[in-house]
Structure formats: structure tokens, C-alpha cells
């Protein structure tokens, strides 16, 4: 058990001047903000939103190829590199002979994710990126295990974000 001793020293009797100084600062800011509302430091959050730089590491995006299918090759390097172990991938064989391996399940547990960006760094084909979205609201019991549908084709992405790495172009260069 911790015992908190009451501070009975002489200096504690001179609290009133300290309070008045503090209140002075508060009223100064109040007056400033009322007179010049544009320079106010705070935001009215749900109505007003702060815009971060486009390089902000927010919610993940799975990129797509030109035909709209997933770019991910299920190499599991992101899952291996993930320090929070929040990525689950199940790989499978593709019917299309030009695509060998693809994920039939790609899940990110958003509540475990620490948004470090290591997945993005590990990805050899630019398939997973950290997007600019930073709000992940959900009511009690919401599903924060985002699957392929949510990561690649959520409405904000308007049909999917195109990957920078294209197999056909790489083959043209003889890679």
C-alpha cells in the first residue's frame, strides 16, 4: 500500500498567486481565440478534419493489377517482417497459367497492427501500401480483421489502387 504524505511545508500556503497567474493565461488565450478564430489551434473534430501529408502511414491498401485482380503474390514477406504478427495469408495456386501463386485469404488485424510500415517495405511487388486514411472507427464488436474485400476494394479506393510493378512490363525488359 502506498501512503501519500500531506505536504505541510510553508510554501504551500502561497497557492493563490499561482492560481491567479494560471487563470490569467487561460483568459488571455480565450480572448485571442475569440478575436482571431482562424488561428485557433484546436479543431472541431468530427466536422473538421486535419489533413496529414499523403505519405502518412495509415490503413493498409492492397494494390491491384490492370485487370483489377490482386497484385499480391502471397510470398508472405510482409507477414514474416511484421513485428506485431498481425498479417495472415493463405496462399493457393491460380487457374490462370501466367499467375502462379495468389492469396485466397489476406487478413490484417488492425487492432494488433502498430502501423510501422515494415510490410510495405518488405513487399517485392508493391502489393501492400500504407494509405493516408487514419480513422478506423467501429462500434463494439466491429470486425477489425480486414480481409481482401476491405483492404483492396473498399469504396474509398474506387475500384482499387494500381500497383507500380507490372509483370508484363518486367517481362518486356527481359527480367
Amino acid at each position, binding site marked *: 500500500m*502506498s501512503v501519500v504524505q500531506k505536504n505541510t511545508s510553508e510554501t504551500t500556503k502561497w497557492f493563490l498567486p499561482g492560481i491567479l497567474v494560471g487563470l490569467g493565461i487561460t483568459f488571455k488565450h480565450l480572448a485571442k481565440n475569440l478575436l482571431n478564430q482562424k488561428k485557433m489551434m484546436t479543431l472541431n473534430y468530427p466536422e473538421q478534419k486535419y489533413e496529414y501529408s499523403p505519405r502518412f502511414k495509415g490503413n493498409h491498401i492492397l494494390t491491384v493489377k490492370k485487370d483489377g485482380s490482386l497484385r499480391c*503474390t*502471397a*510470398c508472405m514477406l510482409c507477414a514474416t517482417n511484421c513485428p506485431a504478427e498481425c498479417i495472415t495469408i493463405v496462399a493457393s495456386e491460380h487457374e490462370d*497459367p501466367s499467375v*502462379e501463386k495468389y492469396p485466397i485469404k489476406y487478413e490484417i488485424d488492425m487492432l494488433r497492427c502498430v502501423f510501422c510500415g515494415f510490410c510495405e517495405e518488405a513487399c*517485392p511487388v508493391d502489393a501492400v501500401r500504407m494509405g493516408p486514411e487514419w480513422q478506423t472507427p467501429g462500434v463494439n464488436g466491429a470486425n477489425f480483421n480486414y480481409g481482401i474485400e476491405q483492404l483492396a476494394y473498399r469504396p474509398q479506393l474506387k475500384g482499387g489502387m494500381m500497383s507500380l510493378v507490372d509483370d508484363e512490363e518486367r517481362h518486356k525488359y527481359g*527480367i
Partner: protein
Amino acid sequence: MPKCTINGKEVVVKDGATIIEAMHGGGAYETSDEPQKPGEKKQWAEGKVAHYCWHPGLSVAGVCRLCFVEIEGNPRLQIACNTVVTEGMKINNTSQKVKDSAKWGLDFHLINHPLDCPICDQAGECGLQEQYMEFGKYNPEMAEKKVKKHKVVDLGPTVVLDSERCILCSRCVRFTEEVSKTNELGIFNRGDRSEIGTFDDKKLDNKYSLNTVDICPVGALTSKDFRFRQRVWYLKDAETVCNGCSAGCNVRAYFNKEGFFRVKPVYNEEVNGYWMCDEGRDLYKFVNRENRYLKARRRISGGAWDEMLPGAGAKDAAGVLKSSGDAVALVLTGQYTVEEYESIVGNFVNEFKSKKIYHWNNNPKTENDFDGLLIRGDKNPNTKGLFKVLEKHGVKTSWSELEAGLGNGSIKSVVVAGPENLQFFPDMADKVKTLSKAQNVIWLQSPRFAGLDELKNNVWIIPMKSYVEKDGTFINHAGLEQKFKRVTTVVSEALTLTEAGDLLAGHHLLIKPALNTLVEAERPEDRVMLENRKKNEFVFRRGEL
């Protein structure tokens, strides 16, 4: 026996041994003139040689040109795999010249090798990756386009070929030529258009085909069964003995928390050499949790099934055995370890005073078959061990005696140590039918079998541990005793035959849950345990303000 110097160390080598054999321990002795005793740890010259095409179990091809070593007095480098050691030879494989040759040899191998590592199953255990990290690390100087070849070629029921990844080491071709002697594979075309393939779309279909996947140093040949299921760096491995047949091949099982994924052979000169059969590689499947009994089940005279913990189930069944007097029989399959047989047979002979112990022979017709390489007709790992234990306890019985006993009612209760790998027990349903004539059936079984659910008499089904979950000994067809250790635990509450036997005999038994905790003896020396850790110097005290 010639004496030579490898990297400044004098080594005595077997007659006719090549340099690479001497360096990898296949033919080298210590500096003393005496040959090594069997079982002694071999010490060979330090520093291994980079190689792809050489495999100790196959003939020498000398095509990869990676194993160059420097020999004193010889102006040019020589390949270690095809140069026989001579008296007084001075060999060096640590010089800059040797490293450079490996580096540029590797550059040639990688000219047409695709950038498939992310989707290649071999990544993580790939020869090219390993040697590149060791010797390569260059910027490629090849400006030409890569030659495109066939990808995802279906070679047969077990193997997929990607000929772009192939470095044409010809190990698989030599394997089908020399070991399996089926000659399916060959190298077609010339120059950089050379490809591995089968003639006229013939299938690579033999009982040892998956060995080609093991010996492939790159990801050109991949196993259909393992393909894309796990990345290899997620797997742990441990050595054990295959329980597929009486050959008793030494194998390494690969697993992680999701279950078992594959089995590969481990070199043992006396048993299996470098190889194992395809059948044996399927045997990890029945071990996985989804195929196993997890709870003991009881059904009294055709009523509803009760579920209970395995230990409780065995204790429950012990009561019935006690009341049956000497009308108790034990049926054993050749699937358990010698230690377990010893314990349960001892319990039966001493506690129940019963010698009604019967051997369930699942393959009486093919028992002595042998295919000339590894596969034996006796599909039990430990039939020899079982006979040895039965002989020791003076048990001499035959199956017809059991059938007669069941018919005339002199056997009321039967304890059955059921099979583990049901695929080798085609007579399972028949035997269940025969044994169900007894009043009480206590079935000790590890994988699920639907036929057991249909039994209408008093039945106890008690889950058993499989061969990867226990320590023990198997005695193979040649009488060789092989001890093996537990790999991991899949169903921790399941019993071993020893535990089940003790419980059925009415002994009290403290079953410790087998956890995958660090065993003190296996603890690495540099590991700091919690109690020895340096205490935190900063201590936060809440009371101080």
C-alpha cells in the same frame, strides 16, 4: 590410404576418395593412421566446398563448375568433385582465387534464373540463395534478356517442374537413372535452351519421385503436396523414424503450430541412405489434429456416446476389465514402440494373469515383399519388436485362437491397440467386425475411424499418441534397434500405450501434460533465464511525491 593437406591441415583419406568427399567427411579420417571406429564423431577438414551437381548418393557429373579448389603445383583450379586425392596433394579452398571462381560460376548460373524467389517454394533453403549470400553479392553484368522456358509443368502425380528456375545440375536425371532406375527424366535441347523434361509427355511416376524434389538445389522441382502451403522458414523440424513400413527410414518431420507439413529423409548409411519413398512422405497427415480422436468416448450397450478425458476413459474401462477376470484379451498391432509393448504386455501377464495376447497382422500376404530399394511389404515399423517382447513373456498365440475364443465366449473383453496409419490397414473394417463379437471392446486408437462409431456393444475409444509424440524404439526388418525422440505434441491429453496399459491395469498414474517447454538439458548456454536476469535498476515507487 593417401595423405593430403586440406587448408593446411593434414588428413588421411580413403583410397579413391575425391577432394569433395574428403572435405565433406565422406572419405576422410583424422590425421592418425587408424581408420575411425563406427559411431565415433567424424572430424573432417574444415571449410566446405560450394557445389550444386555433386550429391554423395549419386555419380559424379561435374557440370556445375562451382566446386573449384586450388591444388598446389597446378596452374589452374580443379573441380573438387571429380579430382581424386593423391599422396601429398596440397588443397586450398579458402583463397581469393577460389572465391572468385565460385562467384563468377554463380553469375553464369543466374543469367537465366528468374526472379521468382517470392513465389518459389524453395526460397529459404535454396542453394542459389545460400551460395549467393556466401560468394556472390555482385551486380549482374549480363545485359541480355533472360531466356524464357516452360513454367508450371505438370511432371506427374507428385512433382511440378519450372524449367526457368532449373540450373541443369542433372541431379534429378541421375536419380531416376541410378537410384529409382526408371529413367523418366532427361535433358532436352542444347545450350541455354536446355531443359529438363520427360520424353513424349511420359509422367514422372515412380515410388521415389519426391526424392528429386529433395535433391533439387533450386526450386525447379517442387512437391505438389507441399506447394504453397507454408514458407519453409515458418517450419520447425526434428528427426524421427518413419513408421510407414519395416524399413524404418530415418526422417525429419517439419511442423509448426498449425500441424505437420512434410517429411524428408535423413542420411543413415545402414538403413535408408539418402532416400525415402513417396508413401512415407504422406504419413504426416494422420498425425494432424483434424484426423485424431481428441476425447475418450464411451458407449454402453448401444446407447449414446459419452465423452470424457482420455485418462478418465481408461480408468473407467479398467473397472470392466477387472470384472472380466481372465476373459481378457489384448490385440496388438506392430505400430507401437518396444517400450510400450514391454509395459502393456508386462501388465497383462502380471496383473491379469492372462497370456491371451494376439498379433494383428494386417499384411499376411505381402509380409516379406521387398522392392529392391527401400519399401518393405510389412507395413508396420515394429513387428520385430513386438515379436521380441511377446517371446520374452512366453506368449505364443494365433489369430484363430482369438476368433475361437470370441465365438465360444471365453473372451469377454478385448483391449485393442489399434493402428496409426489406417491407409496400410485395408482389413480394419473386417477386424472391427470380428472384435465386436466381444462383450466389451476397449479400442486404443489415434486417428479417427468411422467404423468404430457403429459398434453396438460396450465400447471405449481411447485416444492414443502417435509416433511423433513419444520417445521410443523401433526394431526394423533387419533387427536394427532405432531410438527416436518426441518431435512435438499434437494432442497433449492423449495417452501412450504405456500410460493406457497402466491405467487399464488399475494403477494410479500422474499424467503430466506434455508442454513444449524448454528442457534444462537442451538449454543453450548463453540463454539467460528469468531468475538470473539482472534486476531493473530503476524502481518506481508510487508513494514518493
